[in-house]
């Protein structure tokens, strides 16, 4: 009996809930500062893309007259 529960399939789930939560916490801490390297470049790229699409739409459809 673990935590007042007999069936290992139930207390197992209870324990696994806690473990999977801890997995997320540990992963988050270990990678807290990772993966942000290309951020600047991406935002720049995104703005280019946005500008291009706007131009395209202006030309083809005559839309986006006053919107930013």
């Amino acid at each position: 009996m673990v935590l007042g529960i007999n069936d290992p399939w139930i207390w197992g789930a209870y324990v696994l809930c806690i473990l999977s939560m801890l997995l997320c916490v540990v992963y988050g801490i270990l990678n807290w500062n990772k993966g942000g390297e290309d951020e600047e470049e991406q935002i720049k790229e995104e703005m280019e893309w946005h500008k291009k699409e706007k131009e395209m739409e202006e030309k083809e459809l005559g839309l986006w007259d006053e919107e930013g």
Partner: protein
Amino acid sequence: MENIFILSIIVLIYLLLVGYVGYVAWKRTKSADDYMVAGRKTHPFIMALSYGATFISTSAIVGFGGTAGVYGMGLLWLTVLNIFVGIFIAFVLFGKRTRKIGHNLGALTFPEFLSRRFNSKFIQYFSGAVIFLGMPLYASVVLIGMARFVETTLQIDYTIALIAMAVIVAVYVIFGGIRGVMYTDALQGTIMFVGVVILLGSIYWILGGITEAHQALSNLINVVPAESTVKAAATGFTGWTSMPALGSPFWWTLVSTLILGVGIGVLSQPQLAVRFMTVKSNRELNRAVLIGGIFIFMMTGTAFVVGALSNVYFFDTVGKIAIQVAGGNADKIIPAFISAAMPLWFAYLFMITLLSAAMSTLSAQFHVQGTALGRDIYETVTGTKGKSSVMVARIGIVVAVLIAVILGLVLPANIIAVGTAIWFSITAAAFLSMYAFALFWKRSTKEGVISGLIIGTIISVFWLVFEYKKSATALGICKALTGADVLIASNPWPTVDSIVIALPIAFVITVIVSLLTKPPEKEHLDKIFKGV
């Protein structure tokens, strides 16, 4: 009358809070792109809480919490999947690729993402149609969850509660777009977290400690009068702290519908996947895993534990099990427990918690339905872009709200958890194989994923209409056509969820057809997977 006054005050306080945040967001929403995905630059805290608050609704707290009152703590397997699949796998494996590929494709909605990935407009409007037609069921059960709580706590007429909630949420989605949705979601997520922390602490305190509470629940099956559980026992129920008999109808409903349907189906939820496209770098996703993991753990863990343990509380106080106190409607177990066991101030606080939970999910649902109609169907079919599609999206939202309210009035009792699971199953069958292959298998072809999409959707819908007992009997189409409730009456088929059948078939079909058709052009793939 007094109760309507109290409700008005609570709603007013809540709306002032949310309204302020929504207003600030609305002022910043300028272009159509802005309206759709908040310009893709969102803080990780906002992103994680927004995802969490969208994921967890009154359906999880009221519907699944109440269901745990019937099915017991075995439902905690859903919490395991919610955290491991719904957060860890979703963010780390699916999220990062979705963000990068979504960025490369310039996609703003989930159907648009899939459509551009495979270069097929058909995918966009077909997926848009599945979302627009199927999601009202999910939206309506979330509304029902909220309305049931207001009904029980304040003794206000259910219909009035339902309509009031729908109007409030519609107004702020229409005026906010997703930026409003994301910021208000994060605020709502915070409120929800505080609410459930108090609730979890209270139930263990009331029942004398963690082990003591579980022990009492384990013993309960031996002390309750046999007639109160006889019906459930006949279908496989063995107690609230043990798994149902393997392969019994009770087991199949718990495992295939409630645990797998929702636990796996979450990966291809359009309103959740679209959130990955709004973060600016993988760093944000890494951080969001931490916040999201804790959030989901507290939300679903608390709901299921409280639902199951409410049996002990009710048996100790009134000599009945939870489902009896709730008059046979599992949707009323959590509201009944909070009204009976918790102080009045908490019931009000919890109402704000639930209001937050309902609003955050509903707003995202209505938003996704609106963009499904505006961007995915209207824009794709007519070829027009920009302002008129925002207009159509807003009309789509109003239509979606109306359908949800009507469903909320006509759907039967005990519907919240099952309704949610049905929607998750349909989306998993339709989208999951296509979405997974879009991210991870370069050899998958347009023809392959379209076959999987169509066959998955058809089988899933067919199963729900003709074989899955809960939905088939509610719809009555099978009965009208064949005279029988379901096509195959022998166990376990009427309780096997469509996800178990439709998802593997869709998967296999996608692979076979992909391998039989011409591989996609390398140039197209290079563009899509740039930097992945």
